[in-house]
């Protein structure tokens, strides 16, 4: 009897606390939703702020340079030591200032395309042989290599390209390639110091391999075994089964990973800055020549841009950054559209790790 009442009063106390707590719980719930909403909206707000800021900063450069920005080949702050200024479309500029980004645009596009041409086949082929051909234990060193390649800081790639890969290629590979394949346009001629377009492309290729290879490996592992086994039972060789069954199955996902890798190569700054040979205002005459990219130029010139009292140099860098952003954004959208048409798996997201 006593025990029962004790239990009863206990539960009554408990009910009372719960009722009192209910208000607290409701408040907590509302607080969580509000905090979560703020967290989820913040990236969008930051993105809008960045875009507005870039457009605002780039405005005077767009007015001053017009289309010349895309077609001109000379990036020149002008004479900053005389007080006379040129005025065009209402924008003041230092005398003789010219902002033509064509060499940078070409350098950015070419180095990233070379990276795709070299990196994607290596990535897909290595994932294919790991999943479909080699014993399961072999995938461990492969996975470790991919994880490390994805994790190395880009300055480490730059250092490696500068002191190991560049000199090696310049001494042992490029002269032979130029001699044997010299009849192909842009592959012959002077091979230079090993710092330039092709070396940048190769370093970028190594950097995008983990993105493409890891995605390909994971997708290949998801191909239903019966489809492949069916092909093998019909007398396909391993390669024919891969070419006609597995690879078509995962095409869309691999394509998405390629676009992601391309975006990374487009925006890569430090590694390219260190191995591109940092050419200013030149379009290389062959594939070995020094280049510069949009991202590397922003790092290299931001310091000196501030010395321009008219502020146009800074504005021109903002326009270059905006252009780079638009290219990566456009490639992302394009990948989505194509993937939706292909009805494939979703585009992988991230910075490659």
């Amino acid at each position, binding site marked *: 009897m006593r025990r029962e009442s004790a239990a009863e009063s206990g539960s009554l106390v408990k009910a009372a606390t719960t009722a009192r707590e209910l208000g607290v719980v409701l408040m907590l719930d509302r607080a969580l939703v509000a905090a979560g909403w703020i967290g989820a909206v913040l990236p969008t707000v930051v*993105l809008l702020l960045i875009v507005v800021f870039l457009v605002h900063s780039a405005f005077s450069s767009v007015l001053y340079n017009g289309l010349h920005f895309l077609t001109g080949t000379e990036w020149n702050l002008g004479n900053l030591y005389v007080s006379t200024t040129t005025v065009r479309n209402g924008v003041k500029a230092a005398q003789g200032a010219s902002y033509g980004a064509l060499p940078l645009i070409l350098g950015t596009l070419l180095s990233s395309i070379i990276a795709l041409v070299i990196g994607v086949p290596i990535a897909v082929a290595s994932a294919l042989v790991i999943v479909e051909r080699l014993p399961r234990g072999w995938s461990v060193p492969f996975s470790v290599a991919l994880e*490390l390649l994805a994790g190395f800081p880009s300055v480490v790639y730059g250092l490696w390209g500068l002191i190991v890969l560049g000199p090696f290629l310049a001494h042992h590979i490029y002269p032979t390639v130029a001699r044997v394949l010299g009849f192909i346009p842009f592959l012959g001629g002077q091979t230079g110091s090993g710092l330039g377009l092709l070396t940048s492309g190769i370093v970028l290729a*190594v950097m995008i391999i983990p993105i493409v290879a890891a995605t390909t490996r994971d997708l290949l592992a998801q191909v239903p075994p019966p489809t492949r086994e069916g092909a093998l039972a019909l007398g396909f060789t391993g390669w024919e089964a891969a070419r006609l069954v597995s690879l078509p199955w995962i095409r869309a996902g691999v394509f998405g990973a390629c676009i992601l890798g391309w975006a990374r190569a487009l925006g890569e700054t430090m590694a390219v800055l260190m191995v591109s040979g940092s050419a200013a205002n030149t379009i290389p005459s062959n594939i070995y020549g020094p280049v510069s990219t949009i991202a590397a130029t922003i790092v290299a010139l931001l310091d000196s841009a501030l010395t321009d009292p008219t502020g146009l140099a800074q504005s021109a860098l903002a326009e270059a950054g905006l252009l780079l952003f638009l290219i990566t954004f456009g490639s992302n959208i394009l990948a989505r559209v194509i993937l939706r048409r292909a009805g494939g798996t979703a585009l992988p997201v991230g910075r490659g790790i």
Partner: protein
Amino acid sequence: MSLSRRLSDALVWALCGLALLLVIIPTVDIIVGIVVQSAPSWSWKLLTTPTHGVAGGLQNAILGTIVLIVGTVVVAGFVGVLGGIYLAELSGQRTGALLRFFSEVLAGIPSIVIGYVGYVALVITLGWGFSMLAGVLALSIMIMPYIMKTTEASFRQIPNTYREAYVALGLPRVVGLQKVLLPPAIPGVLTGLVVALAIAMGETAPLIYTAGWTNALPPHQLTHQPIAYLTYVVWAYTNQPFAQSHALANSAALSLIILLLVLILASRLMSWQSRRFTTRMQA
């Protein structure tokens, strides 16, 4: 089977094996190259002396890197985890898709563009100067979408029966999230945070014009004092024409690789833990 088909099969797999070598060899070569370059000049004194002119040690850079990446993961982790929980558990489908899309676009912004905006907006316009706060914010903007995505993914992999269970028990949503959904999601969230540390550690471009550089140890104030970090040493000291600068750059690269290995190991342990959770959930 015809000879030509068998030959082409063998040839293709040989090429694929070659491709595999082309993945593994650069990985080994990067590590070996940097170890070999930095081995002659490596000494434990590097860890206890700051940089000095064109040479010296790495104490200021290592401590600065740790301060920067921990600060970044605190700021970006706070925002990203809350946002990820919101996207996975609380948001409507259409709002969620829209917010997710913009977050992915933010993740795709080249890091140097974030560095430019951070420099002109925070360092110059707001007048913070080269500072820890500017560096941490620039890194956080880069890392935020990543943490949000990994958090959302680790909540989404929890089976719906868990949610039905706490609703059926009459638990309020906050309690359900905390007591039922959070425990199985935590290993995945933590793995994401550790990988975010690794990404933040490797960045240079957003920091050059926001964090600046100094020979001094990390400052005690948020603004107006530059802070040192390892990746800067690798880049800037390589450009110096002195042998001891190059040695220091290589040692900095080696320190970065060692830190990376530690972080990868930690994330491995956590994802192993999270897989144990997943199998228990499915059982």
